[in-house]
């Protein structure tokens, strides 16, 4: 049984790999045209890609570095995709690799994060657990509804993006989002001076006085890669995939999305608000790590961020008594 499942898994992984590679190939050929001149020098290393016509082609590795899609194209969404994320709370130990990798990937200044890890405790007697929170890329996004200039928009692939070159910084979307997902560039950062061409898909370089947030890394998806958070997580907490293809993967394990949600009682957070999030959580059952470990291993300045949680308050009271 388990062998069969393993085999099944394996074949699915192979399928997925091919799919992702195909995705990369289609884009790469497009990119070849776009960036062929600027990347005239090849590296000598070649990679096999699948073209749109189904042929396998060898392409120089340098040509695979994709030019970011422009603002207009970034409004469309990747054709035929509908992205979804599943976060397995049972495995999260607040290693914070998702946070760090996301910050690095998006060139975020220190102390500003798209991904946050909450120390949740649903009620007084219930057990605390770590709760990574990206943007939920809702199907009924309040932020998009309230934006006065269409600077934040919903794409065909389900991703909600922000165009930092149009955003006027009114922050209405920040009050509109019930999940406190969005961050504001309160001042000019050095990282904003980067010369690389701006694309809403990358969100880099940032722009002072505008809003930004987790973007599900569509630029990586175009390359067939997982988002920064998913690939950085040492515990494989974060699964990313396509809800129409019914598949999610954390890079190691691949599941049928519907089966995973069914078997592990997946849920959406505060879905009663009618936002229809595209991020699902698997409940924190049979946890592999105690919550304490995720707290004790933190640096002092990060620890301070959890000071107002009941868990930390209890902990400090106990320390005082003993």
């Amino acid at each position, binding site marked *: 049984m388990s062998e069969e499942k393993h085999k099944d898994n394996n074949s699915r992984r192979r399928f997925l790999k091919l799919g992702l590679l195909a995705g990369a190939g289609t884009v790469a050929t497009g990119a070849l045209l776009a960036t062929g001149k600027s990347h005239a020098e090849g590296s000598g290393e070649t990679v096999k890609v699948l073209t749109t016509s189904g042929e396998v082609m060898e392409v120089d590795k340098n040509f695979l570095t994709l030019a970011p899609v422009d603002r207009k194209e970034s409004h469309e969404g990747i054709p035929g995709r509908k992205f979804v994320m599943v976060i397995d709370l049972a495995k999260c130990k607040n290693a914070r690799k998702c946070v760090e990798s996301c910050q690095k990937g998006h060139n975020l200044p220190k102390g500003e994060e798209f991904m946050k890890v909450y120390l949740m405790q649903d009620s007084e007697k219930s057990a605390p657990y770590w709760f990574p929170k990206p943007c939920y890329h809702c199907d009924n996004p309040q932020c998009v509804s309230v934006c006065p200039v269409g600077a934040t928009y919903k794409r065909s692939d389900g991703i909600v993006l922000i165009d930092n070159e149009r955003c006027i910084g*009114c922050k209405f979307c920040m*009050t509109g989002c*019930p999940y*406190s997902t969005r961050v504001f560039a309160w001042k000019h950062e050095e990282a904003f001076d980067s010369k690389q061409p701006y694309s809403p898909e990358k969100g880099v370089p940032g722009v002072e006085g505008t809003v930004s947030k987790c973007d599900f890394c569509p630029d990586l998806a175009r390359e067939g890669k997982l988002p920064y958070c998913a690939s950085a997580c040492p515990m494989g907490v974060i699964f990313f995939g396509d809800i129409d293809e019914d598949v999610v993967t954390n890079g190691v394990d691949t599941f049928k999305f519907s089966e995973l949600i069914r078997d592990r009682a997946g849920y959406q957070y505060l879905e009663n608000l009618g936002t229809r999030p595209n991020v699902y959580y698997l409940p924190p059952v049979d946890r592999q790590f105690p919550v304490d470990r995720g707290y004790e291993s933190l640096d002092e300045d990060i620890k301070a961020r959890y000071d107002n949680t009941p868990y930390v308050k209890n902990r400090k009271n106990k320390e005082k008594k003993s």
Partner: protein
Amino acid sequence: MSKTTTDDLMREFAPQLEHTGLKGKIWIALLFTLVLLGIFALYWQVSRGHIVTGMRDNVVWGVYIVNFIFFMGISYAGALISGTLHLFHAEWRKPIIRMAEFITVISLLIGPLYIMLCIGRLDRLPNLILFGRIQSPITWDVIAISTDIIGCFIFLYLAVLRDLGKLRDFSELKVPSWQKKLYKILALGYEGKPEQQIRLKRATDIMAGMVIAIAIIVYSVLAWIFSVTLQPGWHSTIFGPYFVIAAVYSGSGVLIVAMYVFRKVYHLEKHITVKHFINVGVIMLVLAAFFGYFTFSEYLTKWYGSEKNDEQLIRILFKDYYFFFIFSNYVGVLMPLIVVGFKKLRTINNITITAVVVIIALWMNRYLIVVPTLESPYLPIQDARAAWAHYSATWVEWTLTLGGVASFCLFFTLASKLIPIVQVSELKEEPKEPADIYLR
């Protein structure tokens, strides 16, 4: 006969247009300095980014939005109070109606500036038009406020037109020649001919009705900016009417204070009597009762139902904002009820002090609507810099607040130097019945 009376009145009010005393000059200079300080603070904020304010990722709107709601609120003084009094032909309104309309137009010019201060990229403001989305309540607001400004300005202008004609024709007026020319241009050839009077009367009646309607829409739209979001303290069905009532309430307070100040400064004791204070005071009392009722229903339902997030909000309100809450929602409601409610307490001074308390209470009420809600989102404020969890306004925000109040006073003072603060022509000249005009 009636002509001499108007000339007498002109003679009485001419000094406020002709001279500015030393005290007046110092006052104007002081206000001007405060406005300059505000401009400096604005420069500071624009050059250094919004980091110089107390606003952060959780509390994204602070004192600026509070001031915005506040100034939009007091603009109701003219729109609803003077509009309504006009339509009901309340004779006693005449000496105070001009002030009310000044308050409206001036606060309408200042209010929207505060929403600009919240905007991170002022250079991209044209996007509101270029890429405007009608689905967004901000777009509704842009449309509503600009309509309101135009409407209220026309209403004020129609009311001022007769006086401008008088000022142009009054030969004894000793003002610089540019000012006379200005009167001549602005008077638009109004000479008080019967057909002109009829036209003016009709236009004023229409505009009085319009500004009432527009004002209600504007303030409801403003309330919807908050109540269309899902935030626990904002997502409320009564916010529209609640905001409208709170706005007229604050407008009546500001009107009383303006009456008091101008009565003292320009010696208008003969025209503005205790009767006016009591009448506007009674309006304020009725509004206080409404306001108290709305506030009570709003918080009662939240507290009684005690949904998790509402409970959290109520806890913050009664813990961190205890003083604010008591002052704005208890003192601010009960004081007018008591002071105006008991005949013995109805003196000019008492009513004015009450009005000042009401104004402050309503400012605080808006603060309580904006800030504590943002401090208690659905997801607890965690994993963010601890200093970012709570909002406290910085010197930049306070200076700009002060600058806004100062510019309100400054514009008001300057306006009273240009046009008599009391409607001269209508005091004696208006026919007793509207039919007198139409049937002439």
